[in-house]
């Protein structure tokens, strides 16, 4: 059998991979998208908060298939429980709300359904998708292309690609295949745990609880999850505590100013993961290869949010590669640097700025000073006047 040949092979069908695939396929590239999972998004390693703007910007129509609950604003708490509420239903009442002619600010999505939906859109744009297919390694072969080694339902398969896209998430191995410096510092990876719970009331707001007391190095959150459910979670930086995330979450639920509110909570699901509060990778490309999404650390270092940045990164990558390969340029590292430059211009430079803001906060040794600064930064970050509103 001749080796099947594609313009792009994309490893990982999260928001970054499927969006890259959709935009590239739409412009006529021959795209293979593979994911090792049997069910995308599962087990869930995400809280699912995403702005409406982030979806619309990449042509994703908010669909009941994946929406748990609409969101209208934020509640930011300090360590004592004082809060700043930024409720767009009040700030811009004519625009935001549940009524006719009004709209939500964002959504909490079900990542299982969301990732499947995005994959389906990529498939409808012409992408070939293989599930239960793990990427194992790749080899540039000098003639402008590379070979990609896959295992699909126990069968070893080699395919050819002009460019390999690593969209394999936080645990990315693809960057390592190419020898890129992908390492995250332990001081910049938050260890997160979250419970989906019953019997906790929410009010259409994403609630963010700051303070070293509750989540050293990170923050805690309470998100509405639809069907009357909520999600309670937190992330901690391991070097800032000698307890694990589970211990901190248990303490937050039972002994914080929300003790009364959480009193009858019942756990329905348990999820977790790592969230990089880090800078983007300095080099996100190599010969025949680029990285996108969490794999390139396209994550907002203040909020830890990475869905929006994965979607917009996928948009940038898909369109760049289509323009690039349609001109028949050789995909050398030198030429693919253009992808990173475009990304920096459209998104990355802002993320570097956010990284500096974050670093400034956690450089403070005095806990009270740090707490005050984090609370203030979070509150202004989500305000309608924030310069970073769009990421």
């Amino acid at each position, binding site marked *: 059998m001749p080796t099947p040949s594609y313009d792009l092979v994309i490893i990982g069908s999260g928001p970054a991979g499927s969006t890259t695939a959709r935009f590239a396929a739409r412009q006529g590239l021959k795209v293979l998208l593979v994911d090792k999972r049997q069910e995308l998004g599962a*087990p869930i390693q995400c809280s699912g908060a995403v702005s409406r703007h982030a979806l619309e910007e990449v042509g994703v129509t908010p669909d009941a298939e994946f929406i748990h609950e609409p969101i209208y604003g934020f509640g930011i708490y300090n360590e004592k429980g004082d809060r700043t509420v930024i409720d767009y239903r009040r700030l811009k009442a004519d625009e935001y709300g549940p009524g006719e002619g009004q709209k939500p600010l964002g959504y909490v999505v079900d990542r299982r359904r969301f990732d499947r939906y995005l994959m389906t859109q990529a498939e409808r744009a012409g992408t070939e998708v293989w599930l239960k297919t793990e990427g*194992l390694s790749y080899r540039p072969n000098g003639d402008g292309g590379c070979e990609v080694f896959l295992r699909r339902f126990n069968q070893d398969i080699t395919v050819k690609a002009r460019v390999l896209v690593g969209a394999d*998430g936080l645990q990315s191995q693809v960057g*390592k295949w190419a020898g890129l410096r992908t390492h995250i510092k332990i001081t910049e990876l938050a260890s*997160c745990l979250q419970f989906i719970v019953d019997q906790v009331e929410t009010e259409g707001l994403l609630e963010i609880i700051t303070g070293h007391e509750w989540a050293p190095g990170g923050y805690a959150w309470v998100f509405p999850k639809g069907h009357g459910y909520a999600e309670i979670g937190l992330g901690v930086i391991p070097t800032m505590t000698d307890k694990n995330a589970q211990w901190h979450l248990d303490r937050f639920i039972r002994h914080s100013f929300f003790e009364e509110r959480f009193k009858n909570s019942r756990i329905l699901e348990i*999820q*977790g993961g790592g969230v990089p509060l880090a800078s983007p990778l300095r080099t996100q490309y190599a010969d025949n290869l680029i990285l996108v999404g969490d794999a390139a650390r396209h994550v907002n270092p203040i909020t830890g949010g990475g869905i929006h940045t994965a979607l917009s990164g996928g948009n940038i990558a898909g369109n760049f590669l289509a323009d690039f390969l349609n001109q028949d340029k050789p995909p050398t590292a030198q030429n693919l640097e253009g992808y990173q430059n475009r990304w920096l211009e459209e998104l990355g430079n802002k993320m570097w700025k956010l990284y500096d803001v974050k670093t400034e906060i956690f450089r403070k040794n005095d806990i009270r000073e740090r707490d005050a600064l984090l609370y203030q930064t979070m509150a202004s970050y989500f305000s309608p006047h924030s310069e970073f509103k769009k990421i």
Partner: protein
Amino acid sequence: MPKKDPVIFFIGWNACINCGACVAICPQDAGFISPFDTIAVDRPCDIACLLCEDICPVSTITHKPA
């Protein structure tokens, strides 16, 4: 820095939530992973930085000398 002695990891699968945080922090070469989104448990680790144990949200990774 003196070289550390290799270790072999044991994961308490009963508590593991397959979150992948241990793989994300691990400085090993590509492929030091198990089929369950965790670090490898079928061969020794010669770096032995133990960051994987530190990042685990449910502390379910332990080790012994390899």
